[in-house]
């Protein structure tokens, strides 16, 4: 339902809206953090004692300045919230924000003293930075096409919102051995990476139509990349919180705390074996099952009612206007072929706006662009925006008739690069330019590859001809750039104080999730564009008709790629650091 606020037309999106209790919790969190910051600045709270507190509010201290990571639960935003992010970028930062691979946004330049004010501003639009960092349950992620995807079994957003509430300020699990990430998927194609999370939840329906939760545990990227294990094949929804409590309690009590690199739940699951781990969880769950944390149907309904469909119009499946534009305007049809995806409703489409324009850092958006996307959302997509973990933005409910007009407007603000899923749609963490954990820079690698594609490979035809491929770049083995699951993965490593890059190929996300294989010794920064060009050239030479990069890798293995990249037997050299 639309309403009118100071004469401007503003949608009230169909997403979870805070009630007074939700608002109170966030407001009290702001007050708490304001007081903690005051005590830190006054010197009565030590640096060491403040660190975990600020991290649990998303505040890092980075190379140049503090970095504030703001939660975007399961990647869903209203236009109003997006305008607030633009305001924060302008007022407290240097006019831009960075969308992350966990559907959040980071600001790189706020001052520490201003953070309580930023959090207060966020609270006015039902946002926060709670548990976006630290050794606690992190912001829950999900499918960027939730609610509109045609392959969806149920809408995962109510489940994700319920998990958000359950995990928010959970008193028992704020000081876990290590961070803890949960992802939810409820479609035939897993777009949430559930196999690579501490807990992945796949929702499906039983024969009788009851939603069941397949619980995966112990997946993850990072230093020890591993696919999760099935912990429960089909948990009935009412037991969700009791089962999560049981799992987290086993982890909190028995997860390793002696070595931070072995502290994730995946190590506990690996050391115990999944059967033993499951037995521990089941023993704990037996005490909790059917207890007070059981989720009543009425509560699920309350939350689910926030996510009802917007007021879709009844439209024909085929839009003549749209079809005509496809024929008349090649640039438009190219953009459509990459950026527009299917929708459960006839006459509608979901549009991905690219944040991967050559020359800008992957995932970065300026305040003008953020405001611009908010306007587009209001005019074309019921005032709602999603963040994809591939670091792009999505307008999920656009009428096909309107796609041409939307494209022109998106182009005007630099968000219509027709490269979604192509070579230049690179996933990259902030890397050594910003992050104090990084071993090497990520952004210049992404930019060098993008520039090489533009200069050498020239026209768009070539980019389109190369087809679907993902390049994922992480500046260190914490793997924020998800390098293990890129078709080509690039990992920054430190070699005697110099920045080098290790390359993997054959990784993939989704239902056929797989980890890439290292092709050999690492490369210097200025070699990377050549290496990528060689890998792509090798694929082009070897491919069968209609074969995508990843298919060719699966068919021929990594050897031909290795041979092309290391023509002089450089593979013999032992140049890598021992721990990579």
């Amino acid at each position, binding site marked *: 339902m639309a309403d009118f606020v100071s004469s401007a037309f503003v949608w009230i999106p169909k997403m979870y809206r805070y009630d007074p209790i939700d608002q109170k919790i966030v407001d009290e969190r702001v007050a708490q953090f304001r007081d903690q910051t005051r005590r830190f600045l006054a010197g009565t709270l030590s640096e060491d004692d403040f660190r975990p507190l600020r991290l649990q509010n998303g505040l890092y201290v980075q190379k140049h300045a503090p970095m504030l990571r703001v939660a975007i639960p399961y990647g869903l935003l209203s236009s109003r919230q997006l305008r607030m992010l633009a305001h924060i970028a302008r007022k407290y930062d240097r006019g831009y924000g960075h969308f992350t691979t966990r559907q959040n946004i980071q600001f790189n330049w706020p001052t520490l003293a201003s953070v309580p004010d930023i959090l207060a501003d966020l609270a006015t639009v039902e946002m926060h930075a709670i548990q976006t960092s630290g050794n606690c349950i992190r912001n829950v992620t999900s499918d960027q096409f939730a609610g509109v995807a045609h392959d969806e079994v149920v809408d995962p957003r109510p489940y994700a919102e319920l998990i958000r*509430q359950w995990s928010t300020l959970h008193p028992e699990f704020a000081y876990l051995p290590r961070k803890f990430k949960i992802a939810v998927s409820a479609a035939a194609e897993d777009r949430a990476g559930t196999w690579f999370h501490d807990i992945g939840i796949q929702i499906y329906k039983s024969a009788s139509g009851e939603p069941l939760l397949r619980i995966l545990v112990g997946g993850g990227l990072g230093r020890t990349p591993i696919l999760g294990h099935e912990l429960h094949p089909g948990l009935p929804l009412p037991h969700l919180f009791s089962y999560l409590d049981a799992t987290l309690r086993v982890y909190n009590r028995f997860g390793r705390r002696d070595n931070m690199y072995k502290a994730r739940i995946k190590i506990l699951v690996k050391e115990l074996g999944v059967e033993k781990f499951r037995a521990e969880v089941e023993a704990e769950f037996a005490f909790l099952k059917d207890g007070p944390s059981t989720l009543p149907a009425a509560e699920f309904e309350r939350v689910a009612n926030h996510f009802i469909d917007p007021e879709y119009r009844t439209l024909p499946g085929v839009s003549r206007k749209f079809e005509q534009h496809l024929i008349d305007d090649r640039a438009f049809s190219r953009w459509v072929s990459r950026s527009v995806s299917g929708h459960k409703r006839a006459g509608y489409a979901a549009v991905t706006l690219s944040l991967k324009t050559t020359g800008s850092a992957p995932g970065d958006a300026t305040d003008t662009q953020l405001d611009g996307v908010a306007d587009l959302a209001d005019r074309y997509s019921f005032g709602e925006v999603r963040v994809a973990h591939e670091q792009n933005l999505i307008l999920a409910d656009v009428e096909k008739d309107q796609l041409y007009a939307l494209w022109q407007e998106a182009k005007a603000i630099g968000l219509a690069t027709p490269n979604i899923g192509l070579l230049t749609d690179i996933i990259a963490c902030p890397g050594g330019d910003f992050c104090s954990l990084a071993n090497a820079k990520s952004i210049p690698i992404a930019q060098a590859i993008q520039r090489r594609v533009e200069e050498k490979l020239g026209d768009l035809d070539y980019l389109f001809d190369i087809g679907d491929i993902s390049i994922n770049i992480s500046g260190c083995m914490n793997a924020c750039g998800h390098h293990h699951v890129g078709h080509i993965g690039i990992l920054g490593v430190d070699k005697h104080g110099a920045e080098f890059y290790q390359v993997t190929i054959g990784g993939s996300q989704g239902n056929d999730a797989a980890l890439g294989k290292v092709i050999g010794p690492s490369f210097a920064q200025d070699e990377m564009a050549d290496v990528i060009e060689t890998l792509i050239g090798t694929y082009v030479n070897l491919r069968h008709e209609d074969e995508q990069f990843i298919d060719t890798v699966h068919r021929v293995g990594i050897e031909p790629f290795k041979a092309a990249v290391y023509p002089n037997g450089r593979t013999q050299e032992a140049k890598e650091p021992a721990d990579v």
Partner: protein
Amino acid sequence: MSNHASTLVRLSKSGASVSQEEWSVLTLAQFAEGSLDTHCAAPQKRLLPLTVWLEERDALIADATHPIGVWLDSHEDPAAIAEDLPSLAVVGVNFPSFKDGRGYSTAYLLRQRYGYTGELRALGDVQRDQLFYMKRVGFDAFQLKAGASIEDALTAFNDFTVSYQGSIDQPLPYYRQRLLQRAAGGAE
């Protein structure tokens, strides 16, 4: 673990208050080096390490002329004292560092699983900003880290006035409270 004559913050139905610490927290090392005897005649209130308690429990229970306390370190299993809880006046849980969160689960289990109703005391690196969560999982006494501001600590329990999840202080998650309120008060 420090064993200074610290102040103790106690929570009761009437709120948080400060009281003088009457108990000595004894470490395993103190017993190991022989400076302490389990059957020490001094009628002081002593919080014993788990190992000492497990070795001497029958004698100590038989000999109970004064209240007994036991403390668990962060890695120790509360199941080890589940049977003994009716004999204990105080149970302590040590936080070697406030970042070691095992004690929250230990407290929850002592209260919920093993039904402990006596005083449950947080020991070690206990600071103002962890008190709210500690209260939620069942602690009702807090031996603050040396140097902590008592005034600050007394306000910490009110950081939040509502929570989503059920725990020990409020077993019902907020959604159950809301459903009960609705049932009692009619429709919203």
